[in-house]
Each structure stands twice: as structure tokens, then as C-alpha cells.
């Protein structure tokens, strides 16, 4: 790195800043007079070189920068081009390849912030101001080192359903030790409550048996059933989870998962409509601490429970949900011409779609907590059609009427289910959201217990009435009851109340907090194939992070000037991240003992809240210091020509 040069007049350090301005092939130069910007910044005393290029990110552009660094012509670099999210890393790497610290680099965005939003002379002027501000900052940049933290080669997976088991086996295949934390006594989650899965008609039991067998046979995987997360602390590479293992309650929990363990249940075997028992449930309470480098959230969903009176649910025993029907059919098989449910022959049945999904404000009513489920649950159309086909193909004498708003058979093999349903003579009746079907026992003809009425848009808005023996509600998915985890781990939650990823397209299984990943329906409604995709992606992300044994974090975090710090503790009070900033003993060179602020770099997010409150200017953000900001502001408001 070049030697510090002192300005003879002021005695201040003088850097040699190189400025590289990009045309972006017209994207910038169509509205910004690039050569004028170059001429303007070239006049700044700090600037030793100012160059332009049609595409600065091209190899010749990058080499130009590297040559100037190597020849000693510059020791600080400013590139003025597109948004830093696109090419900042490109240019930092070029600086690094030239043998310099990548943090002597500053970026000016003159495309998104200038040429794409302004034109005329003012565009050129704004570009010049932004570039000169970047030069002023670059002059004050110091080399920084990334924060390196060791990563514990162990993954904690919260949830032992499809997603959790799939993520755990994928990680173990990569040689990573995994601990699954499952709140119920069983592995298998909500999938264990199903029979045949759409669209392939695969048996849920087969999927779960094969996954659970792999999980239980793998020495790298530990399963804690009947366990909940009680405490959480740490940061990427070094998380600590406090787990409480309790003897199970009996009955069904708030997410509808079975907790009944009977003495006849065999460990490792699949128990229909419960799951796989990994081991005997604990007989006494036990507290465990788990250290993990990464955490995968696989907390699943909660099946929607229809409200009292919703489409006659809980008013009439003949109204049941689709999961209830699936269980009744699996446990009470019969081979007659007509389906038999609870001992009753079903001559005709209605299946109502979108129950608990696709709510519209002003049409549907909120639950007690004021929530509407405005999203589509995505799995119910295919599940309903699959059930209808299975019924019609085994019991052609049962007539099926599907009341729907839209059929959303979006995935491979799903549209075929719809075509098959038509072949199987299933009748579709389409209702509008504000005129949903009405289920009533009044006016039901003959000995039919119920009549389902709806304005059918396929019959030109006429009211259609179907006498039925059974009504099945295609219930959707709701976010699982994990508010304790959300609060404890400060997890981001979307407007739909499911956990929210950093970016829906580019970073779909990551959370803003490094080292925590999303797998499966804790994020959004998904079918089992999609769950495996998501869990596999989360496992791959986690394995690649753990594979290096350490994590390099950006160095843009708070740092304390021990000489200036008087230990007022104002910064600790202002800090937004628990554990990022605290007070510690400090001994000066003269042997004086005092309390000063101490930063935990891996926890600090670099927000700057501490900098704003320090009365002694003793704390600063590396790479974004107050001094650097002041220099930038000076140049933004300076008279430039």
C-alpha cells in the first residue's frame, strides 16, 4: 500500500484518489455528460487520476484500475457507475487482486440515482457532486479486515416434519452434525395426518417412513422429541439454544398435532395419523443446551379450523373438513358402489374450496385477532381433486359437486387431476367470493340431511341447489402458533403472518439474520415437493456456510476509541441489538482502570444509533465514520463548476 503523503500546507494525510467513471454503454452517458464530470472532479486536489470507460466493469476497465494501483498512481479508488448492489463487489475484488485492501474502495451510484431519474445539465451536476463526495470519503478510508468468526459445525433444525427431516438428512449427507428439535412426540408433522398426496397419489406413510428411517439411522442426527426452544442467543456460527424436554400432554395440541403416545406404539415404526415415534417420550422434565453454527426453521403450518357455523361446520355433523374426510376414509375402508362415511352411505356430496383462504377484506370477517387469510393455500385444489378422483374411481355411485371460486392446479401433474375429475363426472359449480355457498338442513328434499345452495356463474348466475349427504370443506393453511419463537429470535413476519425471507426471488430461504434459514411451510403454503425443494435449499445454504469452518462478516461495525470513551453508557442504552454493545473493564497504558463500551462485532449491525448519542464522539462505524460523512456533506454542498 502506498505511503501516507502529508499535505505540506495543512499537515493532513494526503491520499492519491483514482476516479473511474463509467458510461454504462449509454445508460449513464445518454443523460450525464461523463467527460464533464471527469473534468470537474479532476480539479479536486485529492484526485490524482480521473478516467472514463464505456464499461468500467469490463475486463479492460477493471485492469485500468488495477494498473493504476500497482504503478502507485493511486492508493484510494472511487468508481462512479451503477448501484453498489450490482458491482461494488466486482470492484472491491479488482482492488484486492491488485494487492490492496478491498476497503480502500468507494462507490458512487450515478445510474440509478442520476441518469435513470434525471436529465439535462442538472443530471451532470448531480453526478459531479456525488462523485466528489465519494472522493472526499475515499480520502479518509482506512484498510479494514472482515470480521472472522468461527462456525460450530453443528446445525439445529426446529421442527421434525417433512421440511425438518429433509433438511436434516441433506445436511448429514454433507457430514454435518444435526439436532432436530420437535415439540410433539412424533416425527412427521402435518403430513402424518394425510393418506394419499396429490398429485402423484404417493402414500404419505411411505414418504415419512423413508425419511424418518434415514433420520433415525444416521449417527450424525440427534432427535429431541417433546422439546421446545426456551432460549436463544448468539450470532451466525455461534448460536446457543436452550431446550426444554417435557413428558407429553395427552390430546391434540394447538396446531392439531397428536400428542397421544400409547404403550403399544413401537419406536421407529410409522403410526397412521400420528407419525414416527423416534424414541419413548421422556418421563421427567429435562433442560438441554445446544450450540449450533446455523439454525433451520422448519416449524410448519397450522391447518385452518372452520369457525363455528362456517358452511354449517359444527352446526351439522355431516359437515367435515378435508383432512377429517381423508382420515375417515383411510380408517373405514369399504368397497361398495357408494362411499360410506361414519356408517352412512353417501349418495351425493359437496366439496367447498377456498375455506380459510383467499379472504377478501369487506367480504369475509376477521378472526378474533383481526386477521384475514388473504393468500391462496395452494395445496387444497389439488388435494380436493385428488380425493374426489379417489372417491369416484372406487365408488362411482357417489355424486360429487365441487363448489369453487377458481381451480388452481398450478404444478406438474395437477391439471391432469382436474381433467380426470371431469372424466369421473365430478360436477363443478363456480361461486363468487361475495356469494358463497349456503349449507342448510331446511328444504333438503327427501331424506337428504343437507342442501347446498349457491349462485352458479357457470349457469348464468342462477341459484343451484344440491341435496347432499356430506359436505367437505377444503381447509387451507395458517401460520403455525410460533409467536414465542418470533419474539425470542426477532424473526421477520410478512403481512400474511408467515415467516418472511430476505428476497422472494434471489434469497428465498434466507433471513436477514445470517445463519438462520427457512424450510417449508413456516414460510408460505407449499406442497410436499415444494417443501423438499425449500428444505434442500436451506440445507445447501447451511452446509456451504459451515463448510468453511468460519464466517467472514462485513467490517462495517461500531468501534470504540478507548482513549476518548468516558464510560457514560449512553451507547449501550441506544443500541438496538441485544448483546452487540456492553460495558467492560479497561486499563489504559498509564495503568488507570476504567469502564468503557465494548462492541461484539459479530452482533453489531452497523446501524450507527450509538454514534448519534455518544457525548464524546468516542464510538464510530468503521468504513462509515462521522468524519467521512462530514467530508461527503462538505463536497455535496460545495460550489463546483
Amino acid at each position: 500500500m502506498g505511503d501516507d503523503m502529508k499535505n505540506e500546507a495543512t499537515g493532513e494525510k494526503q491520499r492519491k484518489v483514482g476516479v473511474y467513471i463509467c458510461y454504462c454503454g449509454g445508460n449513464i452517458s445518454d443523460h450525464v455528460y461523463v467527460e464533464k464530470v471527469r473534468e470537474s472532479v479532476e480539479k479536486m486536489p485529492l484526485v490524482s487520476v480521473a478516467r472514463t470507460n464505456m464499461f468500467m466493469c469490463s475486463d479492460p476497465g477493471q485492469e485500468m484500475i488495477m494498473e493504476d494501483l500497482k504503478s502507485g498512481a493511486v492508493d484510494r479508488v472511487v468508481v462512479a457507475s451503477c448501484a453498489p448492489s450490482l458491482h461494488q463487489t466486482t470492484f472491491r475484488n479488482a482492488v484486492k487482486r491488485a494487492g490492496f485492501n478491498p476497503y480502500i474502495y468507494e462507490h458512487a451510484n450515478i445510474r440509478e440515482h442520476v441518469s435513470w431519474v434525471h436529465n439535462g445539465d442538472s443530471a451532470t451536476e448531480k453526478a459531479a457532486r456525488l462523485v466528489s463526495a465519494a472522493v472526499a470519503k475515499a480520502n479518509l478510508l482506512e484498510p479494514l479486515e472482515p470480521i472472522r468468526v468461527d462456525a460450530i459445525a453443528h446445525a439445529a433444525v426446529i421442527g421434525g416434519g417433512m421440511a425438518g427431516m429433509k433438511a436434516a438428512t441433506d445436511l448429514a449427507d454433507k457430514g454435518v452434525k444435526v439436532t432436530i428439535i420437535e415439540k410433539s412426540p412424533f416425527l412427521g408433522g402435518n403430513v402424518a395426518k394425510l393418506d394419499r398426496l396429490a398429485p402423484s397419489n404417493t402414500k404419505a406413510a411411505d414418504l415419512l417412513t423413508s425419511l424418518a428411517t434415514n433420520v433415525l439411522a444416521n449417527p450424525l442426527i440427534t432427535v429431541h422429541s417433546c422439546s421446545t426452544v426456551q432460549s436463544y442467543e448468539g450470532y451466525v456460527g455461534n448460536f446457543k439454544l436452550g431446550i426444554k424436554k417435557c413428558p407429553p400432554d395427552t390430546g391434540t395440541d394447538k396446531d392439531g398435532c397428536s400428542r397421544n403416545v400409547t404403550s403399544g406404539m413401537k419406536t421407529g415404526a410409522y403410526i397412521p395419523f400420528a407419525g414416527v415415534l423416534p424414541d419413548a417420550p421422556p418421563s421427567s422434565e429435562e433442560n438441554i443446551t445446544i450450540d449450533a453454527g446455523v439454525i433451520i426453521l422448519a416449524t410448519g403450518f397450522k391447518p385452518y379450523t372452520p369457525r363455528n357455523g362456517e358452511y354449517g361446520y359444527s352446526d351439522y355433523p355431516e359437515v367435515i373438513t378435508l383432512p377429517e374426510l381423508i382420515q375417515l376414509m383411510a380408517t373405514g375402508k369399504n368397497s361398495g358402489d357408494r362411499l360410506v362415511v361414519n356408517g352412512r352411505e353417501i349418495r351425493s356430496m359437496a366439496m367447498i374450496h377456498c375455506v380459510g383462504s383467499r379472504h377478501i377484506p369487506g367480504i369475509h370477517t376477521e378472526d378474533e385477532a383481526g386477521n384475514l387469510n388473504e393468500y391462496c393455500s395452494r395445496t387444497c385444489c389439488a388435494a380436493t381433486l385428488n380425493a374426489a378422483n379417489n372417491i369416484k374411481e372406487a365408488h362411482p355411485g357417489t355424486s360429487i359437486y365441487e363448489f369453487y371460486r377458481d381451480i388452481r392446479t398450478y404444478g406438474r401433474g395437477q391439471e391432469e387431476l382436474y381433467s380426470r375429475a371431469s372424466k369421473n363426472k365430478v360436477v363443478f359449480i363456480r361461486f363468487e367470493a361475495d356469494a358463497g355457498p349456503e349449507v342448510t338442513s331446511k328444504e333438503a328434499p327427501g331424506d337428504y340431511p343437507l342442501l347446498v345452495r349457491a349462485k352458479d356463474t357457470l349457469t348464468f348466475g342462477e341459484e343451484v341447489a344440491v341435496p347432499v349427504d356430506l359436505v367437505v370443506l377444503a381447509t387451507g393453511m395458517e401460520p403455525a402458533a410460533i409467536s414465542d419463537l418470533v419474539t425470542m429470535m426477532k424473526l421477520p413476519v410478512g403481512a400474511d403472518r408467515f415467516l418472511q425471507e430476505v428476497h422472494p426471488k434471489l434469497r428465498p430461504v434466507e433471513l436477514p439474520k445470517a445463519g438462520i434459514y427457512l424450510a417449508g411451510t413456516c414460510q408460505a403454503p407449499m406442497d410436499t415437493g415444494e417443501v423438499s425443494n425449500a428444505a434442500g435449499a436451506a440445507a445447501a445454504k447451511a452446509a456451504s456456510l459451515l463448510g468453511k469452518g468460519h464466517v467472514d462478516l462485513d467490517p462495517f461495525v461500531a468501534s470504540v476509541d478507548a482513549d476518548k470513551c468516558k464510560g457514560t453508557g449512553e451507547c449501550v442504552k441506544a443500541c438496538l441489538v441485544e448483546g452487540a454493545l456492553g460495558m467492560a473493564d479497561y486499563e489504559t497504558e498509564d495503568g488507570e482502570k476504567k469502564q468503557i463500551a465494548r462492541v461484539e462485532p459479530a452482533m453489531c449491525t452497523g446501524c450507527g444509533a450509538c454514534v448519534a448519542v455518544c457525548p464524546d464522539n468516542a464510538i464510530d462505524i468503521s468504513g462509515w465514520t462521522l468524519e467521512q460523512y462530514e467530508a461527503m456533506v462538505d463536497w455535496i454542498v460545495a460550489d463546483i463548476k
Partner: protein
Amino acid sequence: MLLVKPDFAEELAAHGSDTAMECFNCGTCAAICPLIYEHFPRRMLRYIQLGAKEKILEEPAELWRCLHCGLCTQTCPRGADPGEVILGLKRYVTANWRKS
């Protein structure tokens, strides 16, 4: 109110047409029909799906306006064969006209 009768499609099969249940109500047949408006022939297929035989018997004249040009059958994306279904309905109406 239109009370659905599940068995009508089977009753109609005896008159030579059993493809109406294949229809997914896209309306292509009604759009292509050169002679008759008012959602014909889809409306007739829909009545069959719901078993609304009284609706068919109420307005049989429309059935006889169909000249069996075959355009609906040619363009049907589901193979529901509307032309043949209309022919079957003509037989059904002939057999059941003013019976009650």
C-alpha cells in the same frame, strides 16, 4: 332455484350421448355457433351436468334450430362433442315431450 338431479346424465346416455360431463364450460362452442346466441349450445350441456331436465324441456325449440354444422364439436377443447349432445337431447325431448 334449480334443484340438481345427479342421475340425469345417465338417463340421457340411453339416448346416445354421454360426453356432456367432459365440458368445462369454457364457452368456445357458444362463441363459434353461427346460428343461435344465448350461450347455446353450452347452456344445454350445463343443464345436463346439473340434471336440470325441466329447463331443457321448457325450451326445446332451440334444439331444432341447430343445423349440426359441427363447428362446436370441431372446436371443443375437451372432446365434449356438443353437436352429438344436442342430437341426443333431441331424441330425449322427442321421447319425453309432454309426458307429465
